[in-house]
């Protein structure tokens, strides 16, 4: 389990993951929040294995999350913003047919 060594209490914000509120810091990588929560970011769409942020620099594509607009983002490259709401991915994304 990861924890913050030097929490910056001047930048606390609340975000939602799968609808549940969590504490975070403004501007920190979203993937860091997942690491503090135990790590699991998504289930692999083919094998259903739990996956986590691995490279933390945008290369491995293991930390994909779904943003509020339905698009996919790499959590390690997504800065935390106050009020943001994201969901863990499970299964393959379904193409919108509208």
């Amino acid at each position: 389990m990861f924890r913050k060594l030097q929490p910056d209490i001047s930048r606390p914000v609340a975000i939602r993951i799968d609808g549940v509120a969590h504490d975070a810091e403004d501007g920190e990588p979203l993937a860091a929040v997942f690491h503090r929560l135990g790590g699991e970011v998504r289930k692999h769409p083919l094998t259903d294995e739990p996956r986590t942020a691995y490279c933390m620099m945008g290369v491995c594509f293991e930390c994909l999350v779904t943003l509020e607009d339905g698009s996919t983002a790499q959590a390690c490259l997504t800065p935390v913003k106050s009020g943001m709401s994201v969901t863990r991915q499970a299964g393959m994304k379904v193409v919108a047919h509208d």
Partner: protein
Amino acid sequence: MDSTDVAIVGGGLVGAAIAYGLLLRDRRVIVIDAGDTDFRAATANLGLVWVNGKGRRFPAYQRWTRRSAILWRDFQADLQKISSVTLEYRQQGGLKYCLGDDELRQQADNVAALRTEAPDLPDDTSIIDRAELERHLPGVRLGQRVVGAALCTADGDVNPLRLWRALRIAIMRLGGSIQTNNPVERISSGPDGYAVHARNGTVHAGKVVLAAGINNRALAEQIGLTIPIRPERGQILVTERLAPYLGLPGNGLRQTVNGTIMIGTSKEKVGEDNSATIKQARRMAARAVEILPALAQVRLARQWGGLRVLSPDGFPIYVHAPEMPGCFVATCHSGVTLTAAHAVDLASAIDGKEHAPGQFSNIFNSFSERRFNVPQASA
């Protein structure tokens, strides 16, 4: 010093397929391959096993590509068994999407001309309108400008990286060997027939097959041949994984078994440069979104470029060197589609012991480089 029946120069899809085919015919084979960083057409394609619309003004190629598509069914079953690699091969038909009536007319003209040029071949390609295309792609919303498609039931797709890996594993399991990072420098006569001099040593072989992609141009001079090929850059875009959505592969648009959609490839004449460019990304993505508007909301995962090998007319070149019997050149653009024909008929023709049926026994006449040496009519 190594000695073998056949030395294959190049361990990409073409060389590996021939090596695999010869090993199945109980020949001893050594594949001499260059480095991982060399240009690899095996990584620069969509994985289409494709017949649709190919072979205009070259009936021998129409037959050859269709022959390979048919051979693919048994070939892939055997290769999967020998290599234990799943190839993700499917043969459900393939689409050439048409945006606007002009494109549809061009496809119709091409299909009609191909039929006239080889009337005995199966009538497996049809021009379908938008309504029929929608029936073939349930759950897919097509862009407004899509008026129809050319549908060929012989088309299929495969994972090209798995194909390449499967061939290399099979070569080793069948007793062949692959020398990596060992570029060939020179070919001369030797005690067993020929000596292939490479960076890490010499291989003595009764026969030599040059299957070194774009490097065949330089290597063929060693066996007295001029092979007029050039690199063609192909760029590919790949999306995030999506739930199964696009039921059929298309030219330039294929959903893989893993869910990603591959978009491409570009066809650029830029020399030995495999860079990825914004210009091509824009062009390819724009066409993909015109065909499937929902793709605009999908995330791109990667873009890359690679080089494929192009002859002046775009068709393969297979040569048995007249001055050096037992030396061959094999080079082509559609290395995935032709893998099965290379493993079966081309390997058989190189082996020379027992020929492929009828028209495929004459590969080295039909696809000789001599077709590019026809004297120009004087003005």
